[in-house]
């Protein structure tokens, strides 16, 4: 493929990765920012979203869109409720102690993964996209007759992939409104700044934590429902999103939602674009090291404030 179209297709793929990453990571970012705990089971909530989406779409008949829309609504709610239960049964009881939360959520990860394996099974299962049409993309080329519109070989994407980008942007805007324009958002931000002070002002911090934990998990599940028509549901699929969103959150700067989104763009796009220039595995190594070196030279992340 010509260099120009190649770079274009890689950037487009990068943008899709970035959109999904942003959705998955923003949930972790909220939990991390407000509750100050690392939820290792975050990826499993993502996986559950995909698995439940498969379950719902296979129950609902008719056009695939019906099942998909049902999944978009039900899966995040179910996963959110599960997360609230986990918060209530485990995290609250260990007082959100950072170290103990890591171990407890690793335990949770094992429990969720194994339960899914025993019920859903070990196969990767597909979910049909509500719509999915391949669209060939045009390219501008300078020919002897001046600029001309061409349709290079292989330069294409699908309507669904474009829709995922759109949906991610829409959801992130909604979230931004929730955080900045509503009372719940205000309470969350107050808790984030100083939980003791918030408590003193009559904010039920425990309930806020439970809601935040549920919201974070629900967002992960929502991301999963959107991505599952591209990727299939599988019981081990939670590992990658966990690591990537974790990275995105730190690179973005702790607790900064804008930073998280910029970091998702940075990581998604660099993953796509670096792949143009190197052999695939080498490209992955370089992209991985790039993340490490960003932090080595800017430990507070792109948007975080340096520690004093």
């Amino acid at each position: 493929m010509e260099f120009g179209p190649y770079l274009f297709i890689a950037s487009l793929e990068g943008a899709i990765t970035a959109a999904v990453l942003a959705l998955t990571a923003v949930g972790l970012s909220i939990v991390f920012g407000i509750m100050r705990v690392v939820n290792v089971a975050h990826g499993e909530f993502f996986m559950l979203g995909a698995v439940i989406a498969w379950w719902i779409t296979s129950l609902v008949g008719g056009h695939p869109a019906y099942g998909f829309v049902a999944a978009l609504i039900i899966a995040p709610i179910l996963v959110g409720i599960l997360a609230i239960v986990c918060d209530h049964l485990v995290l609250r009881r260990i007082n959100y102690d950072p170290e103990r939360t890591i171990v407890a959520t690793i335990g949770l990860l094992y429990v969720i993964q194994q339960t899914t394996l025993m019920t859903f099974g070990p196969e990767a299962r597909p979910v049909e996209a509500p719509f999915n049409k391949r669209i060939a993309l045009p390219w501008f080329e300078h020919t002897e007759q001046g600029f001309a519109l061409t349709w290079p070989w292989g330069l294409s994407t699908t309507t669904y992939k474009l829709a995922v980008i759109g949906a991610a942007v829409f959801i992130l805007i909604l979230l931004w409104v929730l955080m900045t324009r509503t009372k719940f958002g205000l309470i969350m931000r107050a808790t984030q700044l100083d939980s003791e002070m918030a408590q003193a002002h009559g904010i039920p911090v425990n309930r806020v934590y439970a809601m935040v934990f549920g919201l974070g998990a629900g967002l992960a599940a929502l991301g999963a429902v959107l991505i599952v028509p591209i990727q299939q549901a599988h019981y081990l699929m939670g590992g990658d999103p966990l690591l990537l969103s974790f990275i995105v959150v730190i690179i973005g700067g702790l607790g900064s939602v804008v930073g998280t989104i910029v970091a998702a763009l940075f990581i998604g796009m660099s993953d796509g674009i670096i792949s143009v220039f190197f052999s695939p595995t080498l490209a992955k190594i370089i992209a991985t090291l790039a993340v490490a070196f960003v932090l080595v030279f800017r430990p507070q992340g792109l948007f975080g404030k340096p520690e004093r």
Partner: protein
Amino acid sequence: MTDKIKNPSDATGISRRTAIKTLAVGAGVVATTGTIPGLLRPNQAFSAEPIRIGFQVHRTGIGAAYGRWYDRTTEAVVKRINDEGGINGRPIEIVAEDDGTDPKRGAEVVEKFANQHKCDIAFGTLFSHVVFGSAPRAGELKIPYFVVSEGHHVASGKLNRYTLQPGITDVKSQVEAMAPFISENLGKKVTMIYPDFAFGHDHRDYFSTAFENQGGTILEKIAIPPTETSFTKYFPKIPRDTEVIYHVMVGPAVLTFVKELGEFFGPSRPEIFGFIDSLEAVDMASPGLEFLDGTYFWEGNPRYAQADQTEFDKAYREAVGVDANGASISDSKDVSTYAHMFGCWETLYVVKAGMEASGYKGPEDRQKLIEAVESMSEMPHSFEHPQGAKLFNGKTHQAFGHQYISKVEDSKLVLAHTTSIEDTLYEDEVDYTKQAF
């Protein structure tokens, strides 16, 4: 785990309703859906002590989809052998334990078979990193280790005298046998796409050599990192003048890979030849796979019952509980790993033949068992070898057999070509019979 091999539907026939209920209950599941322990009690007819076979199975981890079918096939063949009177009049007892598809745990499981469960032999491993991790321990503990892995590890000479692979062919012979078919029927310019794993490297090395010997050229070799979940960004590396794409992928992302390949090419695709490993346990009618119509696959054993199905395949298929489309009889969405799992069936029949030839009585006869298997050569197409005739090489501890090439027609795999065994042979790389026990 040390459970008995049970009715296959127990492990899978969990309805979606239960699924969700269990997801919610979470903690309570061990009792309800975890397999219940116990040992397979052979027929009352047997008075003799059973022969204990340690079954190293991938029940969790990345190999779980394969493990589940290896489990069912093993159960079926054990039932059949026991119904026929067992081995030397003794029933087989399977001691199954999960290795988590992990080489460290794999080694521990082999130790457990040898020292704790007092098994006669160990058997059944698929993933080659688990074979590599476990084989040294099997050699040291002097327990015969029959793998069903299709890796080239045994025949490469890197393992030891106690490790054998008599029931499934290895990747080197499979790959080399594909070269003539591809160059004669599909095209001379090939681009290879494979995982950046040792398994993928075997494909790269053996296929490219064999294909170049046929006068073909490999235009590009695209190794995909195993952590990858989206593939479109790599496809522009496929050269424009590619006549054939050769693909082999493993892991849960394979369906994405095939779908994205289809979306990339749209209506103007080159010829495509793949290894069914890319789609083992995946329904050919899955959304997005339509574009594979007219492409070719290597199959270890044809998944769909063919028009000229042999009585052997018929009996085997029925015993394992697989329908004519290669899916479980009880759930048509539960697709088998048909191209690999026959290896469990055939391997245990080789074990039976070996034990009977050597008059095997107990662990003290393990060396005699290995020598008996080493002296085997031709294994005719039969109920014991339903995949086809085999030629066993006692020196390299590796079986050789027919390979199948199928074409996708209306989302079904239709057999298009069967290679001869001679096509799959290569020079010996080791003589294990010269090694001391």
